[in-house]
């Protein structure tokens, strides 16, 4: 009951407090001398947002780098084989983390490639049929579903019973139709189970890629395509030589988003296998270190994850700067 009251107070109170902050603050600022007023006002307005970002992102990032160089009790700098970088030495030599690193690379490559290319192919295909919007709804359906629910959905698909008993999992029942032995999809390591998990990731992401690619596909003028057809290009040539190059900027945007998602992958692996049978990825590895209070090691994993994202971060900032110049 207390919780409900607090929540109601927050929902009503926070906007009211900010309203008061704006009106009250403006009252004060308007009394300031002209130049001071112009100087102070923007910072006053930006302060809550910038403050939140600083407390919950900028400061913790710096602190995480420091923690990654400290010992377990955070009482002194770390010592070990690589001296102060002992936690990183652990990361790059311990077999379990190496497995996680390998899996994350697999996610990075296969998840990104298949999510983007399937999104592109489906967007182009459904563009040519009358039931386009219906097909798009079907493909998009997994996007609003949480990774937790998606994982349970696929646990059913992958369900495995010992051979000879009725297979209640959809995929193993299908194998049974073709007189094949059931596969323990989530246990068979390292290829089958990781491929299965990555597929679940792709299943949830294709709708996202398709919607965005489809939006810019609609923006291609039909005259361009008509001209190509008159010149005698067949449909495959049109897709390869006209549509794909025109969509390339969108494909790179979607691709970077998918790369970032692949690196951050956590929910699906955590719910479906919790990293068992060699399915750990960097993000689940970081979490299990954190839960066993190995903060130094966990922080080192976080830093490695961040370093891997830096190139994508730079790409995003570059793209933003280019867009700003066009404004």
């Amino acid at each position, binding site marked *: 009951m207390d919780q409900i009251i607090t929540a109601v107070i927050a929902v009503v109170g926070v906007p009211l407090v900010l309203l008061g902050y704006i009106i009250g603050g403006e009252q004060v600022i308007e009394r300031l001398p002209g130049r001071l007023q112009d100087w102070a006002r923007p910072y006053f307005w930006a302060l809550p947002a910038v403050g939140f970002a600083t407390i919950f992102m900028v400061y913790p990032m710096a602190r995480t780098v420091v923690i990654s160089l400290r010992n377990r009790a955070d009482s002194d700098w770390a010592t070990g084989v690589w001296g102060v970088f002992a936690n990183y030495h652990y990361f790059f030599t311990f077999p379990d983390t190496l497995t996680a690193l390998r899996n994350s690379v697999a996610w990075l490559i296969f998840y990104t490639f298949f999510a983007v290319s399937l999104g592109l192919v489906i967007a182009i295909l459904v563009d040519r049929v009358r039931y386009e919007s219906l097909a798009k709804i079907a493909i998009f359906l997994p996007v609003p579903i949480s990774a937790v629910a998606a994982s349970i959905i696929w646990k059913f698909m992958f369900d495995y019973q010992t051979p000879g008993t009725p297979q209640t999992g959809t995929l193993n029942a299908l194998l049974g139709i073709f007189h094949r032995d059931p596969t323990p999809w989530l246990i068979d390591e390292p290829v089958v189970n990781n491929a299965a998990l990555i597929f679940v990731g792709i299943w949830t992401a294709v709708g996202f890629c398709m919607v965005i690619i489809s939006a810019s596909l609609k923006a291609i003028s039909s005259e361009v395509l008509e001209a190509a057809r008159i010149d005698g290009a067949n449909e495959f040539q049109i897709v390869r030589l006209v549509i794909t190059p025109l969509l390339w900027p969108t494909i790179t945007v979607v691709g970077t988003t998918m790369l970032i998602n692949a690196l951050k992958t*956590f929910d699906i692996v955590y719910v479906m296998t919790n990293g068992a049978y060699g399915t750990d990825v960097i993000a689940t590895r970081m979490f299990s270190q954190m839960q066993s209070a190995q903060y130094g090691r966990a922080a080192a994993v976080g830093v490695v994850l961040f370093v891997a994202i830096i190139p994508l971060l730079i790409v995003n900032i570059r793209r933003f700067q280019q867009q700003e110049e066009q404004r």
Partner: protein
Amino acid sequence: MSAEQVTTRRESAVSRSVSALDNLGYRLQRLPLHLVIIIICVIWVVPTLGMVINSFRSIDDMNNAGWWTTLFPPHGFTFASYQQVLAIEEVPLSILYSILITIPATVIQLTIATMGAYAFAWMKFPGRNLFFIVIVGLMVVPIQMTLIPVLQIFRFLHVNGTILSVWLAHSGYGLPFEVFLLRNYLGGLPREIFESAEVDGAGHAVRFLRIAVPMTIPAIASLTIFVFLGIWNDLLVALAFLGVSAFRPFTVVITGLVTSQGGGWQYLTAAAVLQMALPLAVFIFLQRYFVRGITSGSVKG
């Protein structure tokens, strides 16, 4: 180019080259296209459908035969799974906590973000570009990079394990994207409106509340849906800050059921359907806002 345009273009080409046989040939040629699309759609829908059907079956049925057998009589549909999962005391409570986490967290971050976005869009100040580039960068920073220090901050403030802590954490993590998106939208509003309001003597508070906010409602609406569902579906933040507290939200409790109930399918199916009911309802009824939220986030960037 719409699907209709394609077909009419095709149809005019067909009529020019006469003969009904050609028409048949053209349809046959398109058969693989339809097949591929339908197969993909089936793969994308059947898993969800299968689980929803399973949630209405008894545990004995689930253990003895796949969900597809229920499609033929005797169906044997039952609400037993729902009754059982809702009878677990922490499940209905966790749904309540999910709501109590999601709504305030959404309201808090969007009000703060709108205000910050206004400053970045319509005020000039030294360091504005630098601050904003930092915000663009923060959008992709993995949450993992911040979890431990934020946990320490919460411990220091004695709010660790409370619902308040996740309101704050979600707000901090969500703000960069929201400020970015709203600033782009606000910055696209016509300058003349703000200038004439300024000439009329309206201060920034009036311009913000009377002009900027009402004109930004479409963007805020899309963003609200997006943020709301993001928090409702979140697992990582909730696990990190509420994983062992009394206020575990629905996603965390379901995840707990997966590991503790081994083969307890009867709980999982019903719980998963309850969890995804809200996102699916939002998607189906507010489809336009939902898709707009996604496309505006990445294409215009």
